[in-house]
């Protein structure tokens, strides 16, 4: 095959801050938005960007995720000439190796990249909620004759210490990196989305693999080294909706964002759909005793109680007299009669038989099976 640009998704992380939600599945496989898993977003972006080959590097609790990705059929990536590969760490003649960092996960898959004969690689995280056409970012990369292009977004300065921060000149060329700085020099944050010219990436990864003391991380090692070597690194200004859902609260917030009229994610856009697995659900039923207001409800849900400002997934049952408010209920959960759930995330297949009340500043995780 010969592809201009291929995608590699880093989906190996556990996401410990999601607590028990990632006890059995990797973070990219966590449910989102009533009918999705988080990884549906980058995979749909790949499909919608006209990219035909994608590799997904998985490691932590990967069975559910690997099954979910399958042949890539849910995202249309199973056609002739398309390729969706699950890339777990594996045993080689040199021995067995786990992926020891983001750069190492790509380094161990250089053979896969070589076989695609690609000119460019877009490297993605499996745990962000956003829509992006990477072909536009590639046009920007080519226009600038860049070696590396990093998608960046303005964040509130108070939050900047959580991110990799970039400083640029007027032409968006990056002249400094700060990885999670205590005193950020700018409010321009890396989204962890990189386009590399492949020949340069290949060389940089091999060099990094041989570097003693390297943590084999893009943000900490590979990108600063390339910057120091005078390579052309550019920041691609992204202005749409983007959310890192790394914590219970941010996952809850991102779900609540879907209910905000001003949210620019535009899940309902027919021209840039987010694809997902079909759940073979029964029709969604809103019973005579139900109240549903300002909410998102997926097929297969049965609502007999009251739902206000919440996101309800497939096969969820809200029994009569139950009141769900400002919450995200994952697939197959049941909220028993008369129970109140507020400001919470309820895990998949959980049966909630007691009131569960979080706060708008600290959403509660309810995940006792």
């Amino acid at each position: 095959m010969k592809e201009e640009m291929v995608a590699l998704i880093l989906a190996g992380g556990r996401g410990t801050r999601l607590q028990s939600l990632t006890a059995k599945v990797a973070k990219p496989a966590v449910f989102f938005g009533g009918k999705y898993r988080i990884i549906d977003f980058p995979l749909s972006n790949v499909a919608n960007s006209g990219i035909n080959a994608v590799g997904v590097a998985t490691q932590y609790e990967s069975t559910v995720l690997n099954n979910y990705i399958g042949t890539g059929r849910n995202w249309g990536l199973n056609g002739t000439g398309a390729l969706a590969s699950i890339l777990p760490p594996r045993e080689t003649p040199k021995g067995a190796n786990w992926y020891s960092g983001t750069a190492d996960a790509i380094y161990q898959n250089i053979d896969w990249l070589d076989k695609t004969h690609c000119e460019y690689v877009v490297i993605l995280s499996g745990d962000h909620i956003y829509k992006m056409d990477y072909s536009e970012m590639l046009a920007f990369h080519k226009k600038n004759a860049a070696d590396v292009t990093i998608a960046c977004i303005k964040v509130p300065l108070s939050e900047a210490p959580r991110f990799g921060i970039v400083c640029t000149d007027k032409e968006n060329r990056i002249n400094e990196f700060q990885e999670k700085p205590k005193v950020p020099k700018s409010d321009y944050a890396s989204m962890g989305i990189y386009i590399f010219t492949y020949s340069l990436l290949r060389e940089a990864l091999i060099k990094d693999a041989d570097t003693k003391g390297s943590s084999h991380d893009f943000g900490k090692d590979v990108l600063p080294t390339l910057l120091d070597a005078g390579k052309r690194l550019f920041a691609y200004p992204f202005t749409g909706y983007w959310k890192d859902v790394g914590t219970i609260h941010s996952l809850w917030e991102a779900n609540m964002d879907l209910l905000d009229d001003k949210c620019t994610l535009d899940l309902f856009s027919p021209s840039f759909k987010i694809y997902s697995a079909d759940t073979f659900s029964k029709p969604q039923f809103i019973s005579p005793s139900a109240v549903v207001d300002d909410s998102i409800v997926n097929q297969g849900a049965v609502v007999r109680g009251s739902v206000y400002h919440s996101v309800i997934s497939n096969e969820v049952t809200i029994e009569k007299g139950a009141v769900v408010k400002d919450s995200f209920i994952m697939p197959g959960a049941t909220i028993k009669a008369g129970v109140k759930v507020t400001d919470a995330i309820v895990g998949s297949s959980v049966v909630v038989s007691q009131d569960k009340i979080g706060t708008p500043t600290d959403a509660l995780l309810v995940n006792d099976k």
Partner: protein
Amino acid sequence: MSVKVLGLVNCFDNPDFGPMTRHRAIASTSFLGRYAFIDVPLSNFLNSGIPSIGILCQNHIRSLSRHVGNGRSWINNTKIGDFQVLYDEPNVANPGYNTDVADINENRWFMRQVKPDYVVIAPPYMVYEADFKALIQEHIASGARITMLYMHGTNLKKSFINQSKIWLTDRGKITKMEPNRGEMDEGDISLGTYIMDYPMLESLLDYAKGTSSFFGLSDTLNYLSSSVLIKAVKLNDYVRCFDSLSHYLKFSLELLDENTFHELFADKWPIYTKTYDTPPVLYKSGCHVENSYIANGSIIEGTVINSVLGRGVVVKKGAIIKNAVIGSDAIIDENTHIENAVVDKEAQVLHISEVVGTLDDPLYISRGDIV
């Protein structure tokens, strides 16, 4: 299943829903918002472990093909199983000769390819769930040449008109079959669903061909009912014959009753359909919805009561929908009133329009119409 079974969905001589089925078969007509009627027999086949499926297509092949695609949604192993829309190309312009018998004859190549031991034939407009795995075992054990599913009807003067009415002995052998002319209320009605071994099907085809070029399967069986051992097996669970626009509306709304719904939809018996990748339903602040099925992609700002909405329906503020079936991607504008009506897909009901019919005579808005 140790025997090799072919499932055939029979789309010949299906009833019509008036103008709603002018450009589509009942098979590909929307059912409960997110399904098409054909999903039910196809899912019965898949859930019964039937590996190969053919669709006997009388007409409206575009609408049917668009829904079923390559059929992957309804077969397990795509190499061992097979899925074909079977179309009688030479006869499609000769309505008289375009029968299910002629269609199977034209598509014998498919039968030769699948080499079934048994065939199950089921129509899409008779809606029921049945485990054909068990029924085939029962059929084999019974020694009957043909097993036919039936139901008992109590309203034959007004319903099941032209469906095959059957008479049977105490032991379930059919003695007589003829079309229901609505003479009496009580009676037993064939579900147009047959199980037989493949050589039996071949001899039925040969018999039909030798008798008349106009003969379809049900004519042939009516003719042979007294001389061939046809065993009738009664379905006691949910069965409805969707045979008119009024019944389409009534039976759709009847399924809003949870007990009726659970009669049709058993646990662990999924109904598979084509995915459209629509997002979940968005219920806007101030909307009012009760006792309704709403399919994904819909955006609800107005009032929806006792209704079934297809995918991507937009219900604007102040709109009231009651006792209605609304097709996919329809737009129901502000302050409109829809009651006892069927609004076809992509139709638009604009500002202050009234679309009000009765349950016996629902108002129908055609696909894509703007009123």
